[in-house]
């Protein structure tokens, strides 16, 4: 069984790098994308992505839009999806429910160790 990698999507470079470093430090292989369209491209090209972690608030297409798009194109099949958001309110939850996708959410600020644990479990 080949090792699956984690795709991290966030518009903020600092946050992207810190998370990639953190998850990498926990032995996970990470790919990064700074916006939704890059993320879609990577999802299409890379076959061994096992987990997608995306920020919610991004300027060109937010996290939920990205997930919807990806799902419509069948790019999320067999992948675990996590949404990161500063404030998870009812509106976001409702949109996720609409997607009919099993999405776990992480509130900011993120605890890298906790996330690493969850992601590793997801990849098993």
């Amino acid at each position, binding site marked *: 069984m080949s090792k699956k990698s984690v795709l991290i999507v966030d518009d903020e470079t600092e946050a992207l790098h*810190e998370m990639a470093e*953190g998850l990498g*430090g926990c032995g996970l292989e990470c790919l990064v994308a700074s916006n939704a369209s890059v993320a879609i491209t990577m999802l299409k090209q890379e076959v061994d992505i096992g987990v997608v972690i995306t920020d919610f608030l991004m300027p060109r297409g937010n996290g939920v839009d990205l997930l919807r798009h990806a799902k419509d194109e069948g790019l999320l099949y067999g992948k675990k999806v996590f949404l990161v958001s500063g404030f998870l309110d009812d509106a976001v939850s*409702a*949109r996720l429910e609409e997607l009919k996708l099993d999405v776990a959410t992480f509130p*900011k*600020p993120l*605890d890298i160790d906790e996330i690493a644990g969850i992601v590793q479990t997801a990849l098993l």
Partner: protein
Amino acid sequence: MRFFKRLVIAIGCVGFTSVAQALPIHMGGNVHFITGTILAWIFLRVFGVWVGLACATAASLWTTHLWGHPLGAITTGLEFVFVLSAVGLVRRYWPKVSAVSLRPIAILGYWLGIGIPLVTVFYTTQLGLGVGTSVAIGFKQAVNGSANMFIAEGLFVIALTYSGRFRRWSPRKMTSGHLMIYTGGLIGGATAYLTVAFLSDYLLNSLYKAQTHRLQDVLYYAEHSLVSQRKAGDHLIALLNEGKRENAGSDVKALLRRGSDGQWEYLLGDELDRDQIVADANLGVGNSFNARESLHIAYLGEWAIIHSLPVVDNVQVALLRADEVARLQENSSTLYPSTLTSLALTRQRDKEAFGIMRGMELGSDWVIGPPNGALGGSVAVSVPSSFLLSQIWHFQLRLTVLLFVSLAGGVAILSIVGRKLSDQATYITEEILEPRSHSVARQLSGPFLTYEAQIAVETVRDTRKALDDAFNSAVLEGRALIQITDEMRVYLVRIVGGEVIMKNRRFADDFQDEEVRSRILSGVVRVNLDAQGRWRFTQTEKIDGRDKLISWDVTCTDEGRGAYTVTGFDVTEEQSRLEKVAFESKLAGLGTLAAGFAHEINQPLNVIMMANSNLTRRLRVMGGDEVALEKTARIGQQVKRASSFVQNLRRIAKTAMPESQVEHFSLSQTINSTIDLVQNQYALQDIGIERNIEAGLIALGSETLLDQVLINLLTNAHDALVERGQQNMHIWVSTRAADDKLWVEVLDNGGGIPKDVIDRIFDPFFTTKESGTGLGLSLSRQIMSSIGGSLDVANTEVGARFVLELQRWFGREGSDGGNWS
């Protein structure tokens, strides 16, 4: 229920009309078709065309029935149909024609063009009357028919003008022109009636008296002549009895003798129709008439004397026995003993008139002398009634033509003057005042006089000068205005030379005159008046123990006379609503601030948190300095603490943020009511708001939130205009609709937004105003996106245009129209 109510009203009206039309004729009055027809016109005005037509039909049927011929239909029914159709057609195809004098012109036109010719033709062909007589009858009916309408319309218009209750009950467009024409028509119509009824009767009675006198003169001479003829006859008979035939004198017209067989024989006489006389005598007839002479046969035993008198001016002479006199006096409806009163004569004449109309034969007018012993009977003279009647009709022809011409001329003059007045009113309302604002009209409860309401609306606008002219030149208009402003939340008072010369009731009720007057006279006004001679201020007034915010506007219309027009507009409701919106807006602004703050803080906290985790891991991998690890742990705790504070802040902010409940609501109504809110305030600052709002647009979103956004945009436009301070300031609010979207555009002619500003205009805390918070537009944009719409701005040639985009709702449940939820 409504239908039945109307039905009951219609039946009631028809009943009233019928009784009013039929009763006077049954009672023998000479007001044949006044009352019912007047009622029909009034009912037409009050209850509408169909009720009016039904009443007119009833009236014309009654008249037709009672007269026994169909002319009643011409005078009422046909007249109604023609006038209504003519006015209706003109209104439909030439709407620009001034409606003020349509009805009078239509009715005069009807009588001249149709009514009089029809009556003339009817009387000449069907009843065999002379043309002159028939034309006279036609003109008489024309005077009556048009007078009916003028009287009814006059009463109606006066009631409408001077009774507020009546006006509310039956709203019609009335102008002072109407008032003038119909009041004039009322007076003219009533005069025509009185003239026909009294002057005509008086003159006719004189005519009868003169006739009677003439007949009595004829009677006197006839009696003498007959007596002398009788004496000559007696003398001749005596001579004949003595056998002196040759001495028979020529004084006797003719002499008959009864033969042994009992038949009369012509004995002597000349120039007479012998066969006729003998035939009459054999029948025992006393009087025999031919075209030239009245013949009388006096039977004296075996002799019969023929008296003869020439027929002059249709006057015939008869010699009546006592029983014949009695029969004539008892039975004949055409008998006019000289002792009858003039009233009785008039009644008799009317009966005659109806007799003619029913095609009855005419009788004669008689004057009968006392019994004469010498003649053995009473001498009586008579003229055919038709002779007198033709004189009457000739007299009436002149009278009625004169009346009709006077009425038509009077109405024509009144129409010209009235239309001028009416044009002036139109000019004032439509041209000078340019009615842009309709909000006051909408505030009026119930139906109202459109154009005067418009005038009233304009009282809160800036064209006081024109209004003042209207006051001075047309007192009627002023009075109407004063009455109308009573119905609204407008105070209106006119002060000239320190005296209150006109004030509306609302003002009189709520204010002591001295208050405002002294304020104006104290010189404060003169100090405060601007270059255009106006002073506007808003202040709290105590009215009925409650604080009311009144927006006062003092305009000096004539400084020399010290003339001021003061209007006050109660803006308490508007102000409190504006304050509420402003407060909510502030609160929402605070929420936006907090939310933005929370977001901005949370991002770096997130990075710090993750960087700290990574640092901690590295320290551990590198074999870890305990102190350093302790520090990183502390950093982690503090970040979490800060984070929880931010979460709390965010939660609090959320409660202050406006609820973005998604509902469907009438976009058109919301926009209109929002504009209503500010329109009057803006109008006082010379800013006109023009709307082009499609009715019935339903949007998805939140009415209260959109209200806030619109207020923000209007305030923005208002501030831009006021800052620029130009002439002719305008805000245009319009809507556009597509299949699934709606747009609201707010455009001003304030010159637009500077280039360096327009890109940042939606940024929070960005403002160009001294007192601005910089949150209005950013909040508006946020609100729009929260209800699934958007807000954008662009410059146009005249000024800035803000465009709101909204989701359209089509009434299908669950057809979401957006995915913002």
